[in-house]
């Protein structure tokens, strides 16, 4: 909780995430009270207690494999159409139907996975790196760096992410790389804020004071002592970032702002708009794909959160 008399806006803003990312507690490992068990194994044990989380992980792996082997799994080149336009699912050669140009929906679906996953993970990676750096610095060095970060984050909060992304991409043109850059820039403040919060909490812990007294330079302290404790939050946020990025890419593509040289699920939904009356399959399948992947990511994030913080599982 922050200062008395002030409202902890962090907590409420954090509420836009589907999970309440718990603040780290300096664990028993660092105070030397309990014997260290292999932490990863322990993590997995706790994670696998939740069946939905495990199922989601499996599903995500399936999707990744599909994306990787899209070239093999396709029944025809996703860009090459033909005369068989708007065929319903089940027609010969078109498992899930075809669109107005005769392009195969199934083939487009498997190739679309590549774009969605690529954008999702690239954005999460970029946003996490930037966010961690900025958040750690702001959390560890209170003062002007901290205020600047808070102001910048508030600035990004004031304008809905999607609207800003819409305008930027519409004005500057659409390309896969451009979209990744734009969405990353709009996503890092969230990570930074959470990391900042976590760092601030841990900063005043005993073992950190000990390290400072021992003369360790700040950077090393952040890297060796603080970040591992904040790691859980970073990982959870990162998984949610992927979900957010996939949804944002889908939204931008839905407006026709996606890169037309790649097949994307959002782009498929954009084209489906014109055929809601006559070709329902063009809208249903890509949407299902997006929803299932994002749902899986959210469940995995949920599961990770629970796995890192077993005490909170009591809730």
């Amino acid at each position, binding site marked *: 909780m922050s200062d008395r008399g002030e409202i902890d806006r962090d907590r409420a803003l954090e509420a836009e995430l589907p999970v309440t990312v718990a603040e780290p507690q300096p664990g028993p490992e660092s105070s030397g009270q309990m014997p260290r068990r292999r932490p990863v194994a322990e993590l997995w044990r706790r994670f696998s207690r939740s069946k939905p989380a495990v199922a989601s992980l499996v599903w995500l792996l399936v999707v990744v494999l599909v994306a990787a082997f899209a070239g093999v799994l396709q029944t025809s080149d996703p860009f*090459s*159409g033909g*005369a068989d336009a708007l065929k319903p699912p089940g027609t010969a050669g078109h498992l899930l139907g075809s669109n107005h*140009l005769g392009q195969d929906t199934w083939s487009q679906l498997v190739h679309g996975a590549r774009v969605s996953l690529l954008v999702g993970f690239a954005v999460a990676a970029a946003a996490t790196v930037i966010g961690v750096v900025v958040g750690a610095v702001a959390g560890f060095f209170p003062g002007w760096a901290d205020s600047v970060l808070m102001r910048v984050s508030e600035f990004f909060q004031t304008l809905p992410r999607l609207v800003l992304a819409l305008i930027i991409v519409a004005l500057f043109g659409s390309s896969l790389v451009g979209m990744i850059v734009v969405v990353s820039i709009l996503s890092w403040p969230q990570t930074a804020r959470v990391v900042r919060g976590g760092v601030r909490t841990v900063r005043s812990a005993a073992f950190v004071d000990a390290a400072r007294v021992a003369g360790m330079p700040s950077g090393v302290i952040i890297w060796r002592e603080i970040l591992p404790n904040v790691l859980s939050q970073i990982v959870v946020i990162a998984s949610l970032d992927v979900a957010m990025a996939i949804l944002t890419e889908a939204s931008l593509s839905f407006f026709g702002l996606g890169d037309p040289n790649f097949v994307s699920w959002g782009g498929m939904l954009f084209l489906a708009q014109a055929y809601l*009356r006559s070709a329902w399959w063009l809208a249903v399948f890509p949407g299902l794909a997006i929803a299932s992947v994002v749902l899986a990511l959210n469940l995995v994030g949920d599961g990770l959160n629970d796995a890192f913080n077993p005490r909170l599982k009591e809730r």
Partner: protein
Amino acid sequence: MPTRRTVLVGTLATLGLTACAGTGGGSGAASSGSTKPKQVIIVTDSDPDSLNPGLTTGYQALDVNVKVYEGLVWLDKEGKPQPQLATKWVASPDNLTYTFTLREGVKWHDGSAFTADDVKYSFETLLKDNARAQGVIKQIASVTIPDATTVVFKLKAPYAPFMSQMKAFDTPILCKAVYDGKGDVKANPANRAPVGTGPFKFKEWKTGQSVTLTKNTAYWAPGQPKVDELVFRIIPEAQNRVNAIVAGEVDILPAVMLPQANIKDIEGKPNINVNKQTAIPALYFMLMNQANPALAKVEVRRALAAAIDRPRIVTQAMGGLALPGFGSWGQGFPWATNKDSSYDKLYKLDPAKAKADVAAAGGVAGGLRITFDAARPQFAATAQIIKDNLAQVGVEVKLEPLERSVFSDKVYAKRDYDLALQSFTSSGDPAIGFHRLYLTNAGRTANVNATGYGSAEVDKLLGEAAANPDQAERGKRYQQAQVILDQAVPTLILFDELQADVNRTTITGLYVGVNPADQFGQVDVK
């Protein structure tokens, strides 16, 4: 005890319901008047940018303006001029002077009298910068008014399409008294509440929703107009326009507002009439930039022409509402089309041969970009098909959809493109709209020949065709030019757009003129 929370929630809910009721568009009070006015509802996709036809060339404005304003003549189904604000016209033997006798007793919507002053003022002041009127105004040397009912135009040189541009679409007559001496034309309130001579008067404009016109009871043609109100309903989403006409919520869906790919959802539905025609031909084409060394070679261009599946584009990108590219002038003007030279003869679809030809000519290093206006779905679909076609002949195509002004800048100003998709309307005559496709042009203005192609012989033929009023003679020139152009294929004509206007069968009196938006005085509701 109600907690503050319940109060908050309650307030929110009440606000929500009140907002529902408040913006319902009316208090629900009983409407005055027992009989409902006879209404015809036309659908459009956005607000007109202005109702001053001198200031805008957008179709949304045009559709409204030609019911409010009139020209000296209107064009009937054969394209022949018929009297509108002028009752008689005579051309001098050298075709340099046109004398119009104006109709008497015509009143503006505000009650004042229409005179030759209005015509002169319109041509000299109000229309002089209008893009649509440019073609003809540039040709006019002077406008004189010997008396209140006579106007004399002197041209700089004979101009064959002169009469066909004296219509409301190109040169509408505006009211001098409304604009003269009233300050900046662009700020004049008449731009949003027009005063014309046409069968319908402006009634109201609810931005984002509708523009309503009402019957001009003092209209000069007896018995017209037959309906009481014309409402232009604004529906931005293409799909919803389709839904609206099928559901009977609107009466008329103009061709420009129809998403061609969805024609199948409309044709054959009960109480719907689809009127297809190419009265005002429009060509869709692919520019090939000769600044690209591969495209500078005619063998490569010919190979590409033989690789592109034009019938497939017509079916899939236009819903069948087009005629596949015939030759360099399309087939919209039969008198100008050379039947002996055609794409079918020269560039029959043959991907295998095309692939060999491209390779023989040295291939296309680095692939090609295809640039087009992102806002037009027909272009997007066409580009995809072309990409598919060219992949089969070993040419990789990268799609580059651009926002319209960026497209204009890149293609015309900078000539930074390989292949570009564009469409031009002829505006009723090849001399008005199509010459710019092929005339040698080193300039960097928009919407002209940006391929770098130029032929002195073609330029000469086109110049003669523009000046000579005899259609047979003009036809000869165009056909000769077509042979040259078909061989060189600097720009590949993809298709002639087939205009499909849709109307409910309860509406009669449509399609009297060459342009379906015209002559609404005769429209009636069964």
